[in-house]
């Protein structure tokens, strides 16, 4: 019950206009300052500023200056609630015995290096916020920067180039390649050939000269490997 009554009393105090009390509290100070933009001609319409995340609120005048009335002693964080420009945050300390001389520390961003600043605050916007991703326009060059497309282009080129290259080859080489191709298509043949090579038995069927096989040994090995994987 006592809890209830105290609550009711508290409720009453909330509703009634605060008489006298606000003046009986310790002295208040006034925090002044000015916001600036790098471009002095740009408008800075009524930007909202808060102390301690909204316990005191003010707006800038047309010239960018602002004032917080009746700031009680303590440590306060001044923040510019702009949606367009980035300003530093300022921590202000007001000591009860020196209300006229607030100590101010500026943070470019929370957690950044702090530096002491004089009291009538001068805050210049560091940057303006970019909410939109710039659209990269459609360009042919952009498409060709894609590695997949580059591969495609090479492949396509090969498609047209290969027959031409084939024509220019030696008839012997051509024959060789054709045989390899055959082998590729029939892995059992290739395996048996390989087996023959290792054991030295299969050479009767394939009287291929050693000299001829040498240059394509590498390619053969490769195809063999690929065949296995298939």
């Amino acid at each position: 019950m006592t809890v209830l009554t105290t609550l009711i009393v508290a409720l009453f105090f909330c509703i009634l206009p605060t008489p006298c009390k606000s003046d009986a509290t310790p002295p208040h100070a006034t925090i002044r300052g000015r916001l600036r933009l790098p471009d002095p001609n740009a408008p800075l319409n009524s930007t909202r500023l808060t102390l301690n995340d909204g316990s005191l609120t003010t707006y800038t005048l047309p010239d960018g200056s602002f004032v917080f009335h009746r700031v009680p002693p303590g440590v306060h964080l001044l923040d510019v609630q702009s949606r367009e420009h980035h300003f530093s945050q300022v921590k202000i300390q007001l000591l009860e015995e020196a209300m006229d001389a607030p100590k101010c520390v500026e943070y470019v961003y929370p957690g950044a290096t702090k530096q002491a600043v004089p009291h009538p605050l001068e805050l210049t916007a560091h940057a303006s916020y970019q909410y939109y991703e710039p659209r990269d326009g459609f360009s042919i060059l952009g498409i060709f920067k894609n590695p997949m497309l580059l591969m495609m282009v090479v492949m396509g080129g090969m498609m047209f180039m290969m027959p031409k290259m084939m024509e220019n080859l030696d008839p012997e080489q051509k024959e060789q390649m054709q045989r390899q191709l055959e082998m590729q298509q029939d892995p059992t043949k290739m395996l048996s050939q390989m087996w023959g090579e290792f054991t030295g038995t299969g050479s009767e069927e394939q009287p291929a000269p050693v000299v001829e096989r040498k240059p394509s040994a590498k390619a053969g090995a490769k195809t063999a490997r690929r065949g296995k994987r298939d």
Partner: protein
Amino acid sequence: MTNTTLPLLFLLSLLTTLLSPQAAALHADEAGLTDFLLRTPGHGHLGVQYGHPLTLGESRQFPPEVVWITSESGAPVAIDGGGQSESARGGQECWVAARNVTDGNVIWRADACSSGRSGNRRHVTLATGGMVHTLDNVGILRGWKVESGLIYDVDVIAQLNGLVLSSKEDAGDDKKSSRDSGYILQTPRLLSADVHKPFIKTVIGTVVTRDKKEYLLMHHSATGEIIHSSSSAAVAALPSRRLLNEAKVKPVTCSRILDLVSNGDRMGVITGHSTENEITLSSMAYTEIRLSSSDDGDKMVYETIHSVPLKTFGEVSSTPLVLSTVRVFTHKEKVYVMGFQNYYSKLIVANFDMNTGKGNGKIISMSTFHPELLWFTSITVEDFIDSGVILRVAGMDGKLPDAYRMDHLVVVGEDQDGGVSLNKVSTKDEGEEGGPQHEALVYCPLMSVSLTAASSEDGTTVVSSYETSSDLRTWSQSPMDGETVLVPPSRGGTSGGIVEYAHLVECKSDSMTGVFTARGGLTIALRVEKNGSSLVLKQLWSTEEALGSISSAVFLDETHAVTMSDGSFNADDEEETALRNLQFSNRIQSQLSSLKNFFVGGGILSSVASMALMSEEKKAERDYAFGFAKISVLLSESMHRIIALDTAKKGKVVWAMNLHPDAESHKIVHGGQISSLNDPHGYGGVHDHELLVLSYVPSTSSIEWKCFDGMTGRIFSNGAVTVSSKIAQIVPLRSSIHHPSHESISCRQVALIVHENDTVSVVPDNARSHSTVDEAISAPGRNGLFVHTVNKQTGEFHAMRVARKLKSSLELGSKAFKLVTVGTALFDPSQEKIVNVAHPQRGEVIQSPSTVLGDDALLLKYLNPHLVVVVTEATKSFLAEISPVSEGGNEIENSFYKSLTTSDGGSSSGQKRKPLGASKPGEAPPSTTSTLVPSLFVTLLDSVSGQILYRVSHAHATESDLTEGVSTKVPVIISENWVVYTFFNQRTRRTDIGVLTLHEGMIDKNGLTAFNGPEQELVFSSLESPKPIVLSKTYGMAKAITAIGVTVTKAGITSKQFLFATANDQVISMDRRLMDPRRPNGELKPSEKMEGLVRYAPLLPIIPLRTPSHVYQVSNVQSISSTAANVESQSLMLAYGGPDVFFSRLAPSKGFDLLPDDFNRGLLTVVVLGMTVLLVAIQRMNKKKLVTTAWL
């Protein structure tokens, strides 16, 4: 052929991917396509003052295209400050807004109060001379202009404190030192006067109080500077006591400043002696003031010329007037004083000579105005004409329960004998019935036309126009072209159409514009234009003011209305229609007709065209198919209104409904206790459109309920249930049994209400609902129906089970059920105060019950639907008890000095400090320092057993000395196994975000194989299952957070983002991974890197590109709701609670299953066509070549 086609197809698919860039952020031209913002002035309709900068009298000018809307937390010019009802939200909103006349858009809006979170915020506004002036309750006077916003900002009290009092008698009056700063601003009041001699100036007056005596301060209207006395630059305040003494008025109790008056050439102040809230005419005085330039140039000074008492005779002079209703104005060397007699039943009007103070008065009874008038409410000065002053006198009639307003146009002037005359403008043949009753009227003197609104028998509100005669004695109704129905018949019959306010916002000789606000906040601007001899009525815009005070939101999936096969639409029996459409013959018919349409009706062409170019129509179709089109049903508790918005149509209001105007609280109930939002069967999900709204009416101690269709607002059934005590908890229940909709008094949506005295009632109270409750009690797989209550006053948490009373199985009515207590938890109210209570998101889809770690181990999520988070704050007395005296203050100072002196830079204190909760699973979080006193507690409870699962505390989290008596705001959200809350850290003066993740345990890499499984209970029991293992971390944030939301997707696969509404009026999104409590403190191990964990950093970055609200101003958001679309990648969010309602479609993992809106369909078509041509060409060439080779 195949050889060439394959690479071509490959190229094609490649191009498709290239053409659809998936951006994480918006492009500039995409803004506004998938989102919308509805802005309101922010103050609902209570005390709205359309303060156009109209200078009454000669210079009647409106600025082009712009209107001021100013808000009032208190009464317009309440002299005593008493007897005025605060708005439902306690008058905490101090918004001042400028609005465009022609389209109703809010141009800008600002907070007029300087103290932000204080529990006592009040302000008054005054519109004059092209500006609006505001004064808040701590004495900050501010001036605002349409184009440039804030113009001046002065502290009235602080300006006074350097000054001495005006004269000796005052110094003698009170023995204090004259430099005393004992002035206070009891009730903010603003007065104004226009002077034309010796210069044209508007003077603003403010009133300060000291020792029950009021002092007048005059300010320049352009700069807010105080005007000093001509005798001394140190004197500024005009004491009411001295002025009254000079006029030789007998003192009563308080001496008051009543008003500033001017008639162009002369200016004066009316003062009076009064009791607490009544004043008589005989105790008033008039003091003339002259303004002049000071000796040293441009400064303005004032001097008092003379003071005269106001003298009337007889009853008029001695009848007490209600102080707050006194209106004072001047006309032709006469001062007029008007006011209502006590009990608001009589109007007293008197005029006085400015020089001698002699005057005449009249007492006017209500029957002069209208026979049905029951009491007066207000007087407004409309205009000055040659023969007198045009006033609007408002009152209320006696038709209960819905008392209707009455507005009367009245001309007050001087009669032949120099006495006062009052004439009500009326139609000629007004007999005993008193003529038509006008709920609201606006009068444009330049046009001599008055626009009135009145509700008719059938509930519609109709506008009519009256042309006044030249002598302003009579008016006659004149016909108008155009739609005259202002408000259609209200739904549910709760007085939706009653017009409560009307304001003239524009007046020219050939056109006028008036703004009418109906109960519930529907505001409509009407323009009347003179077209030759006839009048043309046009509706300019309409808006819902209640959107500025939304307290909850429900999303419903929008589907096309069910139509008959012949295209007819029967709203009354939607289900029957739907069933009939499913008949075989109907289906065949519709198939045939669409086939016919495809071939004959140009269907092919249009489908090809729409493929190539994304037409608007196609887009709308897609919005339906992908579930982007939702109806969001919003409830405004303070304005007693439900508004439904269409999210696919830029927030167009689909329907609105008024609720019981005397209700203490309203709640929308939707869904079941545990139900999936995307339940395909639609019981309680977004597809189920049946909603139930409960309104608790204390005056009749009953709960009024309405069961309605959320899509159309059609009411299925309604009724009232008498209850014994207040609502403590509402449990939504859903009947899964289909029943025909034409059955009366039935509703599929059922609410089980737990009252504060631990009784239960069921709404709607009928057999069907009871069977639904029975069904829930005996639901298979669950051990009954559990409910819980949290009493914020006593700090008690009760977990209870609902049971049927024995021997009453056949009994109907709410007495059939009882509560059985299962468990209780207590937050000792002497030590802790409950700040916030949060529950898990109902219907959230959880994709996986575990998280896969980088080393292939599984971290099991603790998923308890009965989790409750209770945030408590240590009470001041408890804090004082446990903390060492004045330790905190010193600590702050010391650390501050340290930070000033050590300029090594770089490392802020946050990085050195070991963050809270950096602990391994199972270990208790280390206490940072032993001296820290915890002030905020976050407690996790199980609502079935009532047992405390986890408790974490934070130091420095209570409000500072700046704001007394205000509870800390701690927004909390529960999403899956995550609990996120934010609070303001008093030590760092920064907002901190606390993150907790709850886990059941961990399964090692090899812990789960075919032969090896963890020993686990398959059934979760709130009573027996072990408590969760909690991981926690605290992060800092550069901006304060007012509300937290989380993205919801259909299957929960898309990565989650938390949404924060920040103090700089934005909604930002934060990837959940960034807030993970498992972010390691040290160097990342490879396995942690694999998982995508980021090294811990004490601050969470705010990335402008991750700002869904981009350039929009979304102020003071109180909650963020979200719902899933039909495509997995998209999530829909709605932020509301402040003056703005913001909706956006988000893609937390980019649009992986959706072509972006800007997908280049045209190019794709061109490429496809080009490829086809190429293919054919190559084929031909190939053939040709083959033939040539064959011949060779």
